[in-house]
């Protein structure tokens, strides 16, 4: 301090005030970072989260792009549902390079031990065009899958071998064909592009599939044609050109064309969406850290009041003082940001190393300057946004502070310029968060929500203090002391409410989202959820199937719905390729969809606009549309929709819009036509089977086995297993969410610890005086414990409320799932927060209690 003052006098302030501020700041920082640990750690944690998520996301999308050819399985891929390509289309492809043909469908594999749903993939001799199919024992795919001694070969994922108790050399049956397991599939180069599977992979040859009898009209089979361009003509431009030529030459082929540049657009979109969510969680960590920054700056300035007053007494202006401490804050922010960037940049490398065997994602770890720069910007801006306000107050610290020991700086507003500067930093931060977001609407909601939570917590802190001040004087000294400590000037209340409230709100949000997602995919199925879906049930088998089920599961309900495949080719007369649907409705236009027709309104639906057609309706074709899709396509009741089914265009007028409860897990379609629209058209049947009591494992497994024997071509999807498969994926995503949230919660704990630590000096002094006046350690402990408990409890209630609200928004509004408030998860998070406050607070207090009185009293 003395050196600061001397320097100020010697330098002649007006000559170089800016440099002076820098020099003074540097001199103060020379004393080390004591008291700034929380500041630096908070910024570092937040920046690490944002930089880590950003870098990882980029490394993943880069990896996807680099491996695009292997993931797609070709330079260009064409896929069709139901039908194989015709001779003209084949000629077009073969003229441009080497073609590999494959077909995928779901089917039942039967062995002596039981039956299981498999993701069947039939390939020709050219497979794979790119990448390597890893088999154990190794061998050329064509040879492994070839017919030998009356049996086709097959390669199965080890999960299937384990489930049916098979070994290489054993036989299984699929449809009407007998297969010999010749190898286990260890790695499939183009697996990522095929999306989520409900069963293990079974690889066979195309010849085997054709011999199996599974290829019936209407079977849910998808044909893939992967094209390897001649090596000289495989530039990116050539690839795009081939795709464009194909679209132009065969506008009505109904095939989905993908190039190696967008091998799995859906996966990429999902990754971006998910990464945005993680980025928001990372920004929350920064936000919590910002509160820590504000606390640290405030208590630093509190400690420096005397030094600041002395500087002013020696002629420093308020602005000079603010500059000195602003330079310090910026230096600390840069330091923290540096640490965060280093850790964040390392994340993709670490994940790539650790997860190599666990997730089959093509991570391409590298340093991503743009992502790191964005994270650094967030870090510095957060520090500024939260430090400027308390720093501005230093401008007006009176010289009189030297002569009077103030309780705490009076809560005075800083000058307008500091308020404006802080507001500018906040606005830039918000703008960046929205600008760089994948979905700006969600980012905007996040920004508004975060501001509301921060403001709300401030109001709550004030309200708590006011309520404590006005509460009737308690009889017990301990209670009175505790309550009084909550509202006194310089009380911990605002710092604790903000840090604990934010941390808890986030913890409750994540716990509730977590719980809701698990609930969605775990054992708690809706009460009347079907046990099975049956796919590919042919018209001529329907009667026999019904009789079979009635005999095998007499108590269960079988519901059958006709199904056709078709593609929307025009809406309101505008061709599909010229439509601009919203992002959540675009998928209905991308390829063939399942369609149905019905006389009555399907279960789990209700009409929200228009009217359902009368029974036996026989007028012009009508269609009912799901309301969200209708909104996404921009259509209303009365508009027309044209679909292409089995090569024939059919236009229907929209009679009504439906709200569909997809979570009932019943059969429901986006498009439901009036029965006369498809009279006489060949179709398959999709059916569900529901047990009145929910079904059980033994019954379900034995029914699968019996069905697989009697109806080898019918695919049985066990709902429980399908949900488990999705649940496993969700579980993996939740791990990432939890890890990112952990950083925010860690930041909150740091901030809370910092806030409680900053008050330590006051606490020790207070405890010593109280002991001098006759307070026992027990009394002090009880009073402080009660204070922390009261603060923790009140904050926990509000944190829980805010967290629940945020979780509801994410689950119900963003994920479109049913939100259930889970008291267990919320209360567990709240109790943990309260316990943490009390333990943190008391652990600091214990050292205060063991302090010897004499030295403290002597040195004040």
């Amino acid at each position, binding site marked *: 301090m003395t050196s600061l003052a001397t320097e100020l006098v010697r330098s002649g302030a007006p000559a170089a005030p800016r440099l002076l501020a820098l020099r003074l700041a540097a001199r103060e920082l020379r004393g080390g970072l004591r008291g700034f640990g929380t500041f630096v750690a908070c910024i570092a944690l937040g920046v690490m989260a944002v930089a880590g998520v950003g870098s990882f996301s980029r490394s993943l999308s880069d990896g996807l792009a680099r491996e695009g050819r292997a993931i797609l399985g070709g330079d260009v891929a064409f896929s069709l549902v139901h039908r194989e390509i015709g001779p003209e289309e084949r000629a077009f492809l073969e003229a441009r390079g080497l073609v590999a043909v494959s077909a995928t469908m779901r089917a039942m594999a039967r062995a002596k031990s039981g039956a299981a749903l498999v993701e069947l993939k039939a390939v020709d001799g050219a497979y794979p065009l790119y990448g390597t199919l890893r088999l154990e024992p190794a061998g050329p795919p064509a040879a492994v899958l070839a017919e030998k001694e009356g049996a086709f070969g097959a390669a199965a994922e080890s999960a299937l071998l384990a489930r049916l108790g098979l070994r290489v050399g054993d036989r299984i049956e699929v449809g009407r064909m007998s297969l010999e397991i010749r190898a286990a599939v260890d790695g499939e180069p183009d697996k990522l592009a095929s999306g989520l599977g409900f069963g293990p992979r079974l690889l066979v040859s195309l010849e085997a599939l054709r011999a199996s009898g599974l290829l019936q009209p209407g079977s849910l089979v998808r044909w893939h044609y992967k094209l390897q361009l001649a090596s000289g003509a495989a530039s990116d431009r050539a690839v795009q050109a081939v795709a464009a030529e194909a679209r132009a030459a065969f506008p009505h082929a109904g095939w989905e064309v993908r190039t190696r540049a967008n091998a799995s657009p859906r996966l990429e979109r999902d990754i971006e969406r998910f990464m945005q969510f993680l980025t928001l969680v990372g920004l929350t960590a920064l936000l919590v850290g910002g509160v820590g920054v504000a606390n640290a700056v405030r208590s630093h300035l509190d400690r420096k009041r005397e030094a600041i007053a002395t500087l002013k007494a020696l002629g420093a202006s308020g602005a000079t003082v603010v500059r000195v401490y602003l330079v310090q804050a910026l230096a600390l922010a840069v330091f923290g940001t540096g640490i965060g960037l280093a850790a964040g940049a390392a994340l993709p490398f670490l994940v790539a190393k650790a997860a190599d065997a666990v997730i089959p994602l093509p991570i391409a770890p590298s340093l991503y300057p743009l992502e790191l720069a964005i994270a650094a910007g967030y870090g510095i801006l957060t520090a500024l946004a939260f430090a400027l306000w308390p720093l501005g107050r230093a401008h007006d610290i009176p010289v009189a502070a030297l002569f009077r020991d103030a309780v705490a700086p009076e809560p005075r507003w800083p000058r307008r310029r500091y308020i404006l500067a802080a507001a500018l930093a906040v606005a830039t931060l918000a703008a960046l968060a929205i600008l760089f977001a994948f979905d700006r609407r969600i980012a905007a909601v996040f920004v508004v929500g975060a501001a509301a939570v921060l403001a709300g917590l401030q109001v709550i802190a004030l309200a708590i203090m006011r309520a404590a001040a006005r509460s009737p*004087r308690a009889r017990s000294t301990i209670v009175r002391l505790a309550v009084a400590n909550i509202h006194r000037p310089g009380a911990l209340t605002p710092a604790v409410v903000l840090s604990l409230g934010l941390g808890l709100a986030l913890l409750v949000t994540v716990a509730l989202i977590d719980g809701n997602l698990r609930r969605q995919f775990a054992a708690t199925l809706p009460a009347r959820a079907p046990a099975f879906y049956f796919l590919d049930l042919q018209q001529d088998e329907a009667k026999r199937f019904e009789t079979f089920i009635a005999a095998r599961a007499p108590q269960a309900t079988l519901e059958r719905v006709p199904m056709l495949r078709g593609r929307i080719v025009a809406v309101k007369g505008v061709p599909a390729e010229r439509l601009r649907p919203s992002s959540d409705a675009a998928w209905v236009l991308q390829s063939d969809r399942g369609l149905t027709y019905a006389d009555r309104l399907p279960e789990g639906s209700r009409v929200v606009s228009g009217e359902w057609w009368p029974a036996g309706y026989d007028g012009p074709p009508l269609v009912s549309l799901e309301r969200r899709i209708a909104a996404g396509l921009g259509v209303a009741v009365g508009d027309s929709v044209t679909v292409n089914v089995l090569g024939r265009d059919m236009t229907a007028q929209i009679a009504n819009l439906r709200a569909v409860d997809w979570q009932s897990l019943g059969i429901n379609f986006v498009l439901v036509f009036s029965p006369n629209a498809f009279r006489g058209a060949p179709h398959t049947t999709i059916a569900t089977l529901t047990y009145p009591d929910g079904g059980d494992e033994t019954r379900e497994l034995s029914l699968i086995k019996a069905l697989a024997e009697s109806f080898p071509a019918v695919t049985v999807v066990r709902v429980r297993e399908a949900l488990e498969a999705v649940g496993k994926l969700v579980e993996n995503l939740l791990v990432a969410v939890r890890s990112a949230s952990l950083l925010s919660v860690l930041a909150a704990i740091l901030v809370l610890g910092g806030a409680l630590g900053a008050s330590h000096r006051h606490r020790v002094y207070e405890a010593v005086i109280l002991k001098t006046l*006759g307070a026992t350690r027990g*009394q002090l402990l009880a009073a402080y414990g009660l204070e922390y408990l009261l603060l923790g409890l009140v904050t926990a209630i509000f944190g829980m409320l805010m967290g629940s609200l945020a979780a509801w928004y994410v689950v119900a509004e963003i994920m479109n799932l049913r939100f259930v408030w889970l008291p267990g998860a919320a209360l567990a998070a709240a109790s943990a927060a309260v316990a943490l406050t009390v333990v943190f607070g008391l652990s600091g207090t214990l050292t205060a209690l063991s302090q010897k009185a004499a030295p403290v009293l002597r040195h004040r």
Partner: protein
Amino acid sequence: MNDFSETASRQPAIALAGVNVSLGRGTARVHILKDISLQIDQGEAVGLLGPSGSGKSTLLMVMAGLERPDTGRVTVAGTDIVGLDEDALARFRGRHVGIVFQSFHLIPTMTALENVAVPLELAGAPDAFARAARELAAVGLENRAGHYPAELSGGEQQRVAIARALAPNPAILVADEPTGNLDEATGRSIIDLLFTSRAERGATLVLVTHDATLAARCGRIVRMRSGRIETPLAQGASA
């Protein structure tokens, strides 16, 4: 006047025998009080006089139970306080000893009234606030009851400290340079207040000072130098 006078009749108010205190560790260890023996009778006013560093404040801390001697016996109001644990010591202090510090040591986050009420509340007095208000009025600060220490002048703060020390009617009042942080006029009024209140209640007073005139107002002066008592029996003018 004294609530506890029956239990302590005939005994000396404070008795120290062979008290030694060292502070610090290793080579920095300083022997502050050297073999101190001293007896102070009930109702007596004693001035501890000595230059800075002579050990007078430490001696006062020992009498108030705020510093533990390395060796020796300390009996205050008939209780051997060396054997008491920290909590028992705190309770003992709360009932028997009132302390006034040079730097006031008011709790900055409590109002004047609350500061005075604290020792009464800690002792479980049911009428703590009524008594505190009376004590505050007695030092002339009834209008400042709701003010925080930072809002009071130095003299006012010390008045609050005196009211706080007297509130539980302690048998013993100890004051460590109570006028050290005050101007002369204010200091004089504070000393008047201290001596008047003590006389009214018949409490024993031990006053640490380096001001000989002030010490002379006590019935007895104990001079200290380098941790030893120089003139244990020197008599001064009566209060």
